[in-house]
């Protein structure tokens, strides 16, 4: 379930209240079910031979399960490269995401790209396994540009594949 779908859920609940309070919509329940069922992010296409499916410029792409930021794929970079003119952070947080193609769990390193203002495109907050700041290994709220030579100016986030997880 993507962040957008999840947020839509919040909206739907707010709607339900407004509806019942104001009696605006007689069929509020139907609306809510309808929204929940609406395929907001239906894209799923396989990359021939790569063992991956999905669109890396969309928030529902499998590697982004624990991300929070702007997707570098929309900013001049890729899932494993920073846009021109930026600097890659050297330390970062990691997440474990399941690749739907092979059903395996992979370790993903969400390195930030730094030294240019926030790209502002493809905002993506998924937060699966995200932990508060004192759990630095798993905290996506931290501006990880802190560890880069460009210092703390944040541009976008990558999702670099590190290897298969053997479980935790």
């Amino acid at each position, binding site marked *: *379930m993507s*962040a*957008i779908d*999840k*947020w*839509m*859920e*919040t*909206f*739907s*609940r*707010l*709607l339900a*209240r*407004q*509806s019942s309070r104001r009696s*605006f*919509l007689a069929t509020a329940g139907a*609306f*809510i079910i*309808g*929204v929940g069922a*609406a395929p*907001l992010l239906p894209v799923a296409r396989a990359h021939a031979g790569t063992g991956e499916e999905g669109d890396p410029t969309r928030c529902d792409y499998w590697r982004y399960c624990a991300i*929070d930021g*702007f997707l570098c794929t929309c900013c001049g970079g890729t899932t494993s490269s920073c846009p021109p003119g930026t600097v890659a952070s050297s*330390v970062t947080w990691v997440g474990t995401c399941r690749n739907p193609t092979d059903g395996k769990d992979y370790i993903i390193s969400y390195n930030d790209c730094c*030294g*240019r*203002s*926030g*790209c*502002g495109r493809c*905002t993506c*907050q*998924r*937060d*699966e*396994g*995200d*932990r*508060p*700041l*004192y*759990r*630095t290994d798993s*905290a996506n*709220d*931290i*501006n990880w540009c*802190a*560890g880069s030579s*460009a*210092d*703390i*100016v*944040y541009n976008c986030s990558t999702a670099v594949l590190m290897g298969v997880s053997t479980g935790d």
Partner: protein
Amino acid sequence: MRVWSSIAIAALMLVMAPATADELQPETLHVEKVPDGPRDHWIWIGDLGAQHNVDTRAMLFDADKGKMLGMLSTGFWSAGVLLPKSTGNVVALETFFEKGTRGPRHDYVTVYDPRTLLPLHEIEVPPRRMTALVQTRMAGLTDDDRFVAITNFTPRQTMTIVDLQKNRFVAETDTPGCGQIYPAGPRRILLLCGDASLKSMVLDDNGKVVKQTDGKPFFDPFADPVIVHAVRAGDDWLFVSLAGYIYQVDASGDEVKLREKWSLLTDGERADGWRTGGYQPLAVQKKDGLLYALMRKGPESTYEEPGDAVWVFDIATHKRVAEFDLANATLAIEVSQDANPIVYGASMKTVVPYWSLVALTLLGQKFEQLDVVKPALDVYDAKSGKLLRTVDHVASFATSLKQP
């Protein structure tokens, strides 16, 4: 100055007649001061600027009038303001790069005059301040308002101490494994550590750490971590966990200890996925000992997504005494401390009505969630939960609230 000056003179000599009795009188341009009077319902909104986090701000609003009173420009990714009651000054943690986003970095603790909002002191500190999506608890004031403690992260963890009486940087201390800052006495602060303990540090008159006491882990950082935002009730600090438990710690003794663990949720509510939401989900109304919690329903990974309800608890009895629904998806709440308390909500208000967005979705139209919301300040009666007013366009990305 040939052409320009002739045009300029034309402009300056614009044909104006002397004012007569029944005409509007000419005015003189001047600069406002922040008005006097009760500040019970004033609120500082911390704006992280969304993609423009080179340009963060702190915006001051009068919630009764729904009026903006002024703003500070606080540079790159600020951590909101600190409000020492003894001086009334406004203290901001500011970061600048010499060339906007590049070049050497300079961090300041800037002290602003509360009436003119002009800088009184710009105290340069080591350029190592931690920046995170959560602005809360990145710095703290000692209870006597004398010292500011700041969390640093490079990712080495240290703490900077600034003296607000002498307006100077005091020292940077290693604080391995420990970060966020919670005041706990005139010259004492607590640091939240990765092993789930609170370390106590006592400062002397010069801001030097003269006593350190390690705490014991008071929660399980893997099974049920607490968020770093916490609230104070007397000598206690109240932390909330992702599973909806309050870890209430007693900070009165040298060693910080868990006083009790209690639940915001029934087992059924917990099973349904209720938990707190947003970046600043707790607020305490001191007089009546009430805890206001911003709530949402959803899987654990949504613990920072906006909440849509406020539940009110009696801190002494742990009973839920009230609850009310919010008008908009909300990222932070605060409550006022006067006799007629209000609840502030930093929300993401939709730019068109909710129902129309749902209707559009059902009609197969696509739109992006973040495109259809704008930050607003919602004001509720704290007792009845009634929405009193919504103030639009308060920020680009409002994640924190602080009451003077």
